[in-house]
């Protein structure tokens, strides 16, 4: 196997597995913090809810941490040429993630898990807020690192080919990074809302924990509704604008648009065929792609054929990932809106069909988030730093593909084990329920 493919496979596999857990922690942490604060203020049910969600959060956090460490170090182990060239820029947000966000999150989570009987109530509540802030800030620094690879700013290239930082504020305040972060954040909150509502729905359907379950469904549905809209507009829309502006070939791949077209239609479904360079069995909505990309129904949209083949990202994967993300995003708005209407009419808790929808809906925000990252990163190819450095030029010169395949197999085995253990433990916590949660004891 080609060493570049081996390195990319290992990174893709480890990051996609890792990302499942931050989705949950970022999406759940507001619930954890708010229930904790209500609990500290004397709401006994909220205290139970806080203990329950803290436990779920902690398992996700732990697996997120252990699978996150290989991510940071893989830049050095597998992408040494890239790191040596760009470290002065991307090392900074990564270092700041550790120093500013991860410390905050880890140290105060320690208080949240072990400190209830030791520390003053105000410090306990503050710890929950610190964990909340730390986990979102951590997400920001990671997205800012990726955003720089998508749309490099605040740098200069020396004659020896090394990229040097010229402005840290330019990197951290890049509008590209902020819109991408807000989109990712909204996506995680959709997942958080669906998880809280879905587990509440499970309890209601199995006629247990009814009181708390109603609160879960209530809060989860509202969060899912608000953020399933925000993830589309304005954040998703603005991400689309940035892609149109800075990475037009990625846009063409996302839409499966081969020929440059005026009044370009939007393909709702259709299967890209890389031989005939067209979509098989497409269903189009006329003119909409031109409108979405340029705000004008008649605008000219450049197709893939207009670019050199060497600049083309893997079209099929980018296309499907994008359509999965957008399709699921639309379904989330529909489910959340429907549930909100029933909640408004005070009939949601007695309508099993919708509770079933909420419960079965839980995995899908994860799939949509992962698909979104595939669009972003696979669509970035063949660049590791957009327009500056090719992915193939970024790999470690001393690591052979055989070595990477060996470690990839090791990661695969270990993550399989982790996945099984995680599911077992989380399902067990859910089966036990919030009423069974006692003070988090040993480590």
């Amino acid at each position, binding site marked *: 196997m080609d060493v570049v493919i081996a390195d990319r496979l290992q990174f893709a596999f480890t990051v996609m597995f890792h990302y499942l857990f931050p989705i949950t922690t970022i999406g759940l942490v507001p619930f954890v913090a708010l229930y904790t604060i209500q609990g500290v203020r004397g709401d006994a049910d909220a205290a139970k809810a806080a203990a329950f969600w803290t436990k779920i959060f902690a398992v996700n956090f732990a697996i997120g941490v252990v699978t996150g460490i290989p991510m940071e170090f893989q830049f050095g182990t597998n992408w040494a040429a890239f790191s*040596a060239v760009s470290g*002065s820029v991307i090392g900074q947000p990564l270092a*700041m993630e550790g120093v500013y966000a991860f410390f905050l999150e880890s140290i105060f989570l320690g208080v949240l898990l072990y400190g209830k009987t030791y520390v003053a109530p105000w410090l306990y509540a503050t710890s929950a807020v610190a964990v909340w802030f730390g986990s979102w800030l951590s997400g920001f620094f990671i997205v800012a690192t990726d955003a720089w690879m998508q749309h490099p700013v605040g740098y200069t290239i020396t004659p020896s080919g090394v990229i040097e930082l010229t402005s840290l504020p330019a990197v951290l305040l890049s509008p590209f990074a902020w819109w991408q972060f807000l989109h990712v954040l909204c996506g995680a909150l959709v997942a958080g809302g669906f998880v809280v509502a879905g587990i509440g729905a499970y309890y209601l359907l199995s006629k247990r924990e009814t009181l708390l379950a109603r609160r879960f469904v209530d809060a989860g549905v509202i969060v899912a509704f608000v953020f399933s809209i925000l993830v589309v507009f304005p954040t998703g829309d603005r991400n689309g604008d940035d892609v149109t502006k800075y990475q037009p070939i990625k846009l063409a791949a996302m839409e499966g648009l081969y020929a440059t077209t005026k009044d370009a239609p939007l393909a709702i479904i259709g299967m890209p065929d890389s031989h005939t360079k067209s979509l098989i069995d497409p269903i189009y909505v006329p003119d909409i792609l031109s409108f979405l990309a340029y705000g004008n129904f008649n605008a000219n949209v450049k197709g893939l054929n207009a670019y050199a083949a060497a600049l083309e990202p893997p079209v099929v994967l980018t296309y499907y990932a994008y359509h999965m993300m957008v399709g699921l995003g639309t379904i989330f708005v529909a489910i959340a809106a429907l549930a909100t209407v029933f909640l408004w009419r005070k009939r949601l808790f007695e309508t099993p069909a919708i509770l079933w929808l909420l419960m079965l809906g839980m995995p899908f925000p994860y799939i949509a988030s992962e698909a979104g990252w595939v669009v972003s990163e696979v669509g970035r190819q063949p660049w590791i730093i957009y327009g500056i450095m090719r992915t193939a030029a970024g790999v470690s010169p001393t690591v052979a593909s055989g070595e990477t395949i060996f470690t990839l197999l090791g990661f695969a085995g270990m993550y399989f084990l982790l996945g099984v253990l995680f599911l077992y433990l989380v399902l067990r916590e859910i089966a036990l329920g919030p009423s069974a949660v006692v003070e988090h004891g040993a480590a």
Partner: protein
Amino acid sequence: MSIVAFIVIAFMITVYVLLDGYDLGVGAITPLVARSDRQREGSMRSIGPFWNGNEVWLIAGGGALFALFPKAYASSFSGFYLPFIIVLWLLMFRGVAMELRSHFPSELWHQFWDACFAVSSVLLIVLFGVALGNLLHGVPLGRQGYFIGTFDELLNPYSVLVGVFALVALALHGTTFLVMRTQGPAAQRAQRLLPRLWAVALVLYIAVSAATVAERGIGFSWIGLVPLLTLASLGALLFLSLHKDGRGAFMASSAFLASLLLQAAVTLYPYLLPSLPLGSGGISIFDAAPSPLALASALTVTIVGLVAVVIYSALVMRQLAGKVVVED
């Protein structure tokens, strides 16, 4: 400014060794002092609130190395590919063991994770020690600063000796932590074990020092003061421990480790990765640093952030202080 960056990295590594060192040490020593399920749980509980925060020093240190010395980060991590990945796997196993042990009330489940915890702790300490040994020993570097040697060259006698010394030193450190932080039969056994570990650590310290002098010769003359500090803190450790001052002994053990790392840093300077044969150069802090502007920016954000971390983690540790009591 490269020198300040070197000090920042050395500081972060030292704090990492002092903090994660005690929880790794607890992992290594637990099978010797904790004889029942409850006792082993108590020893894990003693580090429960802290180990994750401690490990962040490694992650933040890695990030800082990336930002401050990108070339050293790139060539060392890719050059030592397999050892690094093995370290990652061990860190994962250890984290999972600590997190998952308590979730299921079954003795078999506990025994399995206790074993994982102990084995991964021991192996991590030895690997870290061997890595430090190789840094001091020098490694074969190619023209562009990438490692060109083989795996078995990394297991040279000197580095293995440093690895063994690391195991004993951190086991001693973990023992002082257990004595300070827990109460019960395991803590008493740890207290009795302490002088014996101490004696082994002293012997190994002398052996490693002699081997280092044989490898590298005597460095700057004022380094001579650092071994005095090492011996003084080692002496204080035994004295305070025999006088049942748990906190003092832990502090002395921390000073002992810090002095060792100070000595290692001074010996290495100005290299991050010295090349073999020694004296033939390597990756120095001046080659590996980015432009002054980038370095200044990275240093500023790192130092400001670390000051904040030190303040709030001290606050939290004070709040969570107190003994973990384990009756049998």
